[in-house]
């Protein structure tokens, strides 16, 4: 190959490459705004956990360890020393229906769905909520392992796991929660759908 044709060839290649990346760009982005997040940005910001444990990080713990962390991290200050006293949602017991107190305008005597660990239809969502929200006003205070242990402890209080069972992403995914059928998947939807059809 002569020098000139090599040159022509690589020019052609460059044009092709340019055209190709151009097409890829056009497909992915019209405005070129926004940036690919770094790993460090992604993880604290993206805390979404799926019902089957999608997104759960590595790590593990046990209910036994969770009992100690429950004391050390002062969960009991709001949820009660044994998790049954409140005032924040009680952890122990069967599916709780709560009743609006007398004198509550418009609602007295009516039931509404309460809280309780056994209400959660999917165990990974307990991990997820502790991770996002607890202890209240101090999100991010617990390590992943501590959250596995605490989740295990709350499940143990409800007789769902054993005291020394290893609680990790796989264990949480495989737990058959008593209220598993309490979660009704939302119906499909399409634009312009009428209310009667949504029902």
């Amino acid at each position: 190959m002569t020098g000139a044709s090599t040159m022509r060839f690589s020019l052609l290649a460059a044009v092709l490459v340019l055209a190709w990346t151009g097409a890829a760009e056009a497909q992915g982005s019209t405005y070129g705004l926004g940036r690919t997040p770094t790993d460090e940005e992604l993880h604290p910001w993206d805390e979404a956990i799926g019902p089957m444990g999608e997104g759960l990080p590595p790590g593990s713990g046990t209910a036994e360890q969770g009992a100690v962390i429950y004391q050390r991290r002062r969960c009991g200050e709001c949820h009660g020393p044994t998790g049954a006293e409140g005032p924040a949602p009680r952890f122990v017991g069967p599916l709780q229906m709560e009743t609006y107190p007398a004198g509550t305008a418009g609602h007295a005597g009516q039931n509404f769905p309460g809280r309780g660990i056994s209400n959660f239809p999917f165990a990974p969502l307990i991990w997820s909520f502790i991770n996002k929200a607890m202890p209240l006003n101090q999100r991010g205070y617990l390590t992943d392992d501590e959250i596995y242990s605490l989740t295990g402890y709350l499940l143990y209080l409800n007789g769902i796991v054993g005291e020394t069972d290893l609680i990790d992403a796989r264990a949480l995914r495989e737990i058959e929660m008593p209220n598993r059928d309490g979660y009704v998947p939302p119906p499909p939807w399409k634009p312009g759908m009428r209310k009667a059809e949504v029902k």
Partner: protein
Amino acid sequence: MSARQAGRRRFIKEGAALAGLAAAAPAVGAQTLVSGSSRTHVPGGPHGQAEHPLEFGERSRFVRARRIPITQVGHADMHGDPNGYDAMTPIDQLTGTITPADLHYVSQHQNAPEDIDPRKHRLLISGMVDRPLIFTLDELKRLPSVSRIHYIECIANRPSARDQTLNQVCGMVACSEWTGVLLSVLLEEAGVQDGVTWVLGESADKVGLGTNIPFPKAMDDVIVAYGQNGEPVRPHQGFPLRLVVPGFEGKYHVKWLKQVRALDRPYPTYWEQSHFTNYPHRGPLSYYLEQGPKSVITFPAAGRDPLERGFNMISGLAWSGCGAVSRVEVSTDGGQTWKDAEIEGPALRVAFTRFQLPWTWDGQETVLLSRCIDDQDQVQPTAEEHSAFWAHARPPHGNPIQPWRITSDGRIHNAF
């Protein structure tokens, strides 16, 4: 320490320095919260201290427009959250179709973040996309924008026989002009992959609330809003970013939006996996998206001064989560006869629409009713039809016809 944990700690540190996250959060009245302002805040003062009285326009001292806290119901509705705060729009004071942002109803659990610095806030588009993207607020503002008028109505905005005023019957609704970027633009920028059926919107609030939105809806008309009625969205409405999901129940309109994740199935969120699906007599109640056609007469209405005999222009608001209001019918004889009310101005999709009907009251006891018909030919149901539709005595969302009884002394009563 893993990248996840390191990032997490850094986030905590910055977040805490920024927002004083460790401090106990008092229920902050919106009136005293002027985010990003260096002004001295005067407790109780509606907007803080101005250097000149004309620096911002206050309402006349003769106008007492305030949200109405639902103190009694508040606690129970908060399911035990002592700092929960619900307050209604004073819809008896509204004119036209736009609700001033400082009167837009609020329903707040423990979750409101104290103060979000818009320079540090980010929106992440993630999940099943070709390339996850992270946006600053400035970048979002450089994208094509839309400004659309839409109402937002709380799921709890339903009449009850116990309610004594118009505001109690129907105060958890408001209508604003929302400005922002269509969510479809952001999802297209990130390149949505095949198989996406839902998107999860997540909040940067204190407990990470969120909600699942059907993907076709996300691509249709959902707005990532940074503006409300011509100014930045106010803190209690989700500053600096909130989702506006036109026509869907209030809880879908995620405040303090930080992430939209494309998914092939819903990721049930805290409230969705408990309260919104475990409602007594689940079935059709389990998960409800769009709101049906609704209207309410705002004058005359319970809670107002007694009605004077003679000419009175009946006035009210109508809306539908499924489209535009095409007609409103009013009855001044308890439902025996109905007349078409006059629709004021353009009837916009999924927006407050003002209607009126001239009427001369002869001083006889009577019942006033209104019913909305939307452009999908749906008719606002009676209380009985409404209960039958949802197979529940008091369904979680309510759009039944609201009756006002006027007794011969001119007093107006809730006749629901």
